[in-house]
């Protein structure tokens, strides 16, 4: 059977809302930017950061809680080096994932125009697996930045009027035609979840490539150089990270009833703690009041114990991630934890719960 690789748009009315939580085993993602089946959630990284390790860890560990359905992986490489390619294949082979994977590869020295076709081939295959054969497909593509460079190169060769930074004016539409091929449709069992990886030129999140992607995808996972240099893996900066479909995928019956409150509280406390670091650098810790001191300390604990985990550590959402979060939050007085409903404190707080 053959297929047109351009791909027709899914009728918005025929889509099904994505709401099945995918446990990745990575606390930062599961608790703060939860992934759901049918989502497109890119990794915004930069050169020199371990985005490939994170993508592979997700590919390896991703599963639905309480379900045996496994993912098949469609891997699409665009303009990556032979070395990176070997790294991926070797890892997929080592873990046995290669048996459930289809690879579409365009290496750095392959023609640029071919790079524009590679993701379309991969997505057409993914659609075939998902909507004809009921598979849950995880599409990983790397690196979208190379794809966009090719788009610009071909645009220039066609003598088109350039848009921002020389990228073609239709780049938004072009990217949308790839990213929007994620999702679930009514009456079909399969699904397509996308994990595009892109490296932000100059770590700049406002660069047209991450910017336009962010406007199409349902959130982003941002990798931070600062955390990486502190030796924390995975160096995910949860503050600018976001999952737009998170609320549909968490809560009672999906993860746990307190998930939303805990996640909000983690964000708020960590954001304030990080802000205080700037202040402490100027005036020292003595100028802080008790609340601020606790928040400052929490930011360190959060990075060291919550974010940090090893490359093969697969944490379950309840015991591994949410309970850990409660343990860490108990370092802060409950009166400062205003994002938590009292009933969750009564039920889950390690020292103040009422049984």
């Amino acid at each position: 059977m053959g297929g047109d690789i351009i791909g027709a748009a899914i009728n918005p009315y025929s889509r099904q809302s994505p709401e099945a939580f995918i446990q990745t085993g990575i606390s930062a993602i599961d608790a703060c930017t939860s992934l759901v089946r049918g989502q497109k959630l890119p990794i915004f990284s930069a050169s020199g950061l371990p985005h490939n390790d994170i993508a592979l860890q997700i590919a390896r560990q991703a599963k639905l809680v309480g379900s045996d359905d496994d993912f098949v992986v469609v891997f699409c490489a665009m303009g990556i080096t032979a070395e990176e390619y070997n790294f991926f294949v070797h890892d997929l082979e080592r873990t046995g994932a290669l048996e459930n994977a289809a690879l579409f590869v365009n290496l750095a020295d392959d023609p640029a125009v071919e790079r524009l076709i590679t993701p379309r081939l991969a997505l057409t295959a993914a659609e075939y697996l998902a909507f004809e054969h009921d598979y849950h497909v995880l599409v990983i593509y790397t690196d979208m930045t190379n794809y966009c460079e090719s788009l610009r190169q071909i645009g220039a060769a066609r003598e088109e009027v350039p848009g921002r930074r020389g990228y073609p004016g239709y780049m938004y539409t072009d990217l949308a035609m790839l990213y929007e091929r994620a999702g679930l449709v009514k009456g079909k069992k399969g699904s397509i979840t996308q994990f595009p990886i892109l490296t932000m030129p100059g770590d700049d999140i406002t660069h047209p490539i991450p910017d336009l992607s962010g406007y199409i995808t349902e959130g982003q996972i941002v990798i931070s150089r600062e955390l990486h240099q502190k030796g924390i893996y995975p160096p995910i900066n949860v503050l600018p990270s976001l999952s737009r479909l998170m609320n549909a995928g968490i809560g009672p019956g999906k993860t746990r009833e307190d998930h939303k409150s805990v996640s909000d509280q983690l964000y708020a406390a960590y954001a304030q703690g990080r802000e205080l670091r700037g202040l402490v650098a100027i005036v020292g810790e003595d100028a802080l009041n008790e609340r601020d001191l606790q928040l400052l300390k929490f930011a360190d604990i959060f990075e060291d114990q919550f974010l940090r985990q090893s490359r093969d550590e697969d944490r379950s959402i309840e015991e591994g991630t949410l309970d850990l979060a409660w343990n860490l939050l108990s370092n802060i007085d409950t009166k400062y934890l205003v994002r938590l409903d009292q009933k969750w404190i009564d039920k889950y707080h390690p020292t103040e719960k009422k049984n």
Partner: protein
Amino acid sequence: MSKENGLIYRISGPVVTAVGISPRMYEVVRVGDEGLMGEVIELHGDQSVIQVYEETSGVKPGEPVIRTGQTLSVQLGPGLLTQIYDGIQRPLPKLEKSMGVFITRGVDADGLDLERKWDFEPKVSVGDSVDSGQVIGIVQETETIEHRVMIPPSIKGIVKKIESGSFNIKETICELEDGTEISMMQEWPVRHPRPFSQKYAPDVPLITGQRILDFLFPLAKGGTAGIPGPFGSGKTVTQQQLAKWSDAEIVVYIGCGERGNEMTEVLDEFPHLIDPNTNKPLMNRTVMIANTSNMPVAAREASVYTGVTIAEYFRDMGYNVALMADSTSRWAEAMREISSRLEEMPGEEGYPAYLSSRLAEFYERAGRVRTLAGDDGSVSVIGAVSPPGGDISEPVSQGTLRIVKVFWGLDAGLARQRHFPAISWLSSYSLYPQSLDQWYRDNIAQDFPDLRTEISTLLQVEAELQEIVQLVGSDALPIDQQLTLEVARMIREFFLQQNAFHDVDTFSDLKLQYEMAKAILTFQAEAKKAIAGGALLEDVVNIPARTDLMRGRFEKGYQEKINQMISEMSKQISESLEVN
């Protein structure tokens, strides 16, 4: 009109050039063997430039182009409500039936169901003189909305015959002396504003139930608002909250070039949501237009006009309509894409030079008006803007800000702290309070505007104090300024933050907003007194009643309890004074 045929000469994406026909500007034509719908947007002698509303891959030069003689129009009549359309008013459920889950092309679908029978109840009798826009009868379109059937603009006369009973929208229900036959359906070209007799000054607020919007930066019925913000700052959630809770009678929601999954969420969620004013499903008052980012770009350009024309039609019946466009940047990008295919001279950042006049034309279709029939109706327009990198110095944001009267500026920093709605209280503004204050005084409380001033002053003062705190720490401030910081924190966390996904917190009526603001200011006044009397700041701030008050907004029945909570708080503060 002769229906001459032409041939395709050149194709570039959605832009097709045809020769051999001489259509009028903005005429709709059928392109290619598959009869794709297109619209003439430029004429050069015998060459016609056409933007095509469907995907053009596989179309080739030499295929036919056929004139239709009509301009791009929408069908208006009973059956609009609860519908979900694409950018050119094709109902998406019908498209699913004829093409399956993927949108293919060359399929035509009427915007309204032409067969369905509606119960028409006449409001005029034989011999009455009727004028343009006059209501001649009503149809109960949904449980909550009656559809008022009007005489189309520029028609008037004396009723010769009027029907009553069950009819479809094509059947004649009224005949005038001069032989004009009137049915329940009208057609109207989308690029022309519908006529009205007079525009009013906006002096009634559009109540949204969102505290920061209603209390600090209100929008008037018939007003215009822009919501610019970087991705992830909550534009779409804000728009959806407005669509759900604003007290307009009709809501038109345009998803323009946005995400498919998000649109699905709206489509799934709305039918289950209950309108707090009528206790009936919100869908009953809603028309949706969904043109996601990967659907054809020319239809995205048209979707905004389709939406606003439908909104104006309901306005003409005397309804208050709220129109949400998410996002106008995608609409502007569609213009840019087509403009660059036309090889027009680009303006700023590649956008066409006519961008700002197109934006102005669109927003000017908002307003509170006296309709042709003499009723009051309004269209309020709320446009989301997605500036690249969140930098609002770009042309679409700037073009929008020059026109709109309300600016709800979303802030990435607030979004990162999960302060939602992430609307910045420092950069946002509304030019309506002046004209709305009287309404607030008459309907909520005499001192409502004063409370607003006090709250926003406190927030301004906090911003200044924060700069000092950044340098020296909060402990270095005098105690009254430390109290100000605490009060401002209370405003931010208790009042401005609002959880859209929480059953109770998602909507606050104006009375409750007033009480909450009052509670904060009571706290401030009592705390000041206590501290002046020698109480410690720490004791005053940490009284349990204050925490109860702040957490209480998530509980049902909060509104009834709030006054009691306020007095409990005052009591505890005076107790803290006695301890010392």
